[in-house]
């Protein structure tokens, strides 16, 4: 009898546990928990962690570290800015989206015009309009971004438009990259900003954007 009682007690406890587990799973499913996955995307650097936030927002964290807290980094990003209010933010030299340290470069579409905002935590964000050639007719942005953090005068940002250059009916790639032919160079503009807190990761945060490529190359500017 005691054995039967023990079994029924076990069965009851299993039942309660199953109900509790079901409730927890259901509640967790209802909660707006971000979806995280560590995957290798085609056209992107391997080992990325993607977080979908909902509302067509996403965060990508590249897990392969940068060269150091003080380093020169060169990024290539291609993306399609789908809506007039689309924006794409590149985080460099940061430790993750929790800290939001390092350097933030935000490309903000406003209709047909593209703006770039540069900022660091605790510093005033500085905005610069980019030439119309930065966005192709289908609102594709192909850009090369070089960031020097901790190795020269504060932070230096250099931007090149990586869209194909059209000469008549021929498409020609950019022939050379240097600070002389950069489309934006914060050193030339006299922008001065430092980052309070630096890390060794990089990531891309998007809203209404489809990313087609994101990778790194060796830096071009000494």
């Amino acid at each position: 009898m005691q054995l039967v009682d023990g079994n029924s007690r076990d069965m009851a406890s299993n039942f309660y546990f199953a109900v509790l587990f079901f409730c927890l799973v259901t509640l967790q499913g209802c909660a707006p928990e971000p979806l995280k996955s560590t995957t290798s995307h085609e056209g992107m650097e391997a080992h990325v962690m993607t977080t979908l936030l909902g509302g067509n927002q996403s965060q990508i964290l590249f897990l392969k570290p940068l060269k150091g807290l003080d380093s020169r980094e060169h990024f290539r990003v291609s993306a399609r800015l789908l809506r007039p209010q689309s924006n794409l933010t590149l985080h460099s030299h940061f430790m993750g989206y929790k800290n939001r340290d390092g350097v933030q470069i935000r490309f903000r579409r406003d209709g047909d015009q593209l703006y770039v905002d540069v900022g660091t935590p605790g510093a005033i964000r500085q905005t610069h309009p980019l030439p119309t050639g930065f966005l192709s007719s289908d609102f594709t942005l192909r850009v090369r971004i070089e960031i020097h953090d901790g190795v020269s005068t504060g932070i230096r940002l250099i931007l090149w438009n990586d869209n194909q250059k059209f000469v008549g009916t021929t498409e020609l790639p950019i022939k050379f990259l240097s600070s002389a032919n950069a489309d934006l160079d914060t050193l030339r503009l006299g922008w001065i900003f430092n980052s309070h807190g630096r890390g060794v990761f990089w990531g891309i945060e998007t809203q209404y954007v489809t990313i087609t490529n994101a990778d790194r190359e060796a830096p071009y500017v000494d």
Partner: protein
Amino acid sequence: MWISFLFFNFISLAGTTQSALSYRPQSSSLDSSRQEHQRTLDLNIEYRVQKDLRRRLANNSEEGFHEISLSGQYDFFNDLQFEFDFSTEKVDFQHQFKVNEAFLKWTPWVKNLRFRLGQQYLPVGLFNQRSNWFSTNPGFFRNIFATTNETSDLGLIVEILPLGSPYFFLELGTFLGRTNRSEDGRIGNSVRPPRLLSLKSKSKYHQSFLTHYQHHLAFRDETTAIGAGSEFFLNNALDINPHLLIEVWRTEQEQTFGPKQQSEAFVTYVGLEWWKFAWGYRWSVARSTVTGNETSIQLPDETNHLFMLEFKPVAQMAIRLERVYEVQSEILKNDWVGRALLNWTWK
């Protein structure tokens, strides 16, 4: 018999050794011959051509690097000398004038106590005090000095020789930390000025150091570096002069906000000199770890190789070829560097 013969050759040739690698004797040289009155003037001219061998969209090399430097020494008295080294360089169509050295050397008790006051190269490690030794320094030097160029600053160095000989001496130094970064256009007061403490040993055949160096420059992180190293000049009967150098460094870079970076690095140089030729190979590896809250990230190793071949047709001229190859998870440098170094001395 043979041993004594070799020993005799070793000793006799060692005295004539002078590195063909544009070796500038350190300003802290303990050579007693400087006690004589002398007015020496050196004119150094460097022309450098650099070619990036990577197939890239750009050639970011410093093509057409021109440098002219003028250095000299004037002895006011037996125990008071003035040394200077000015240079002007043109890189990427930009001219820059630099005062590398301008200091007074006072030796009140030449065998036991020496002072150097003024703008001078930081006596940290065995590379920093040699202007133009190689076209580039290893990348990890940035962790120590906040720049990969040779670093000079305004400060005071005290050399204490308790035994009255350079085989063992103590070196203490403090600097302003305002002007020692030639890459920076910004000047700010350092939070903690650069300070160093070294135990050193020198002879005709070697020099060794054990150094603790610390600074917290404006716009930079607090940095502590501990390093040790030795350099040997050897000679033999065939007049092939080997030259060996090794340095080991441990640096810690601590941010006010954010993770800290710890690095271990070594650099070694092996050189051979024979007749009018010199050959050398420099190799350095740096390994860094970034430690934050509950995370520790191993960064990719940084490796630097430099091969050097030099021909010195006459004493005042050296033609040098360098191959620099640097990797940190990707090829950062793959350069051919051609250099012509001219040097005249008037006394």
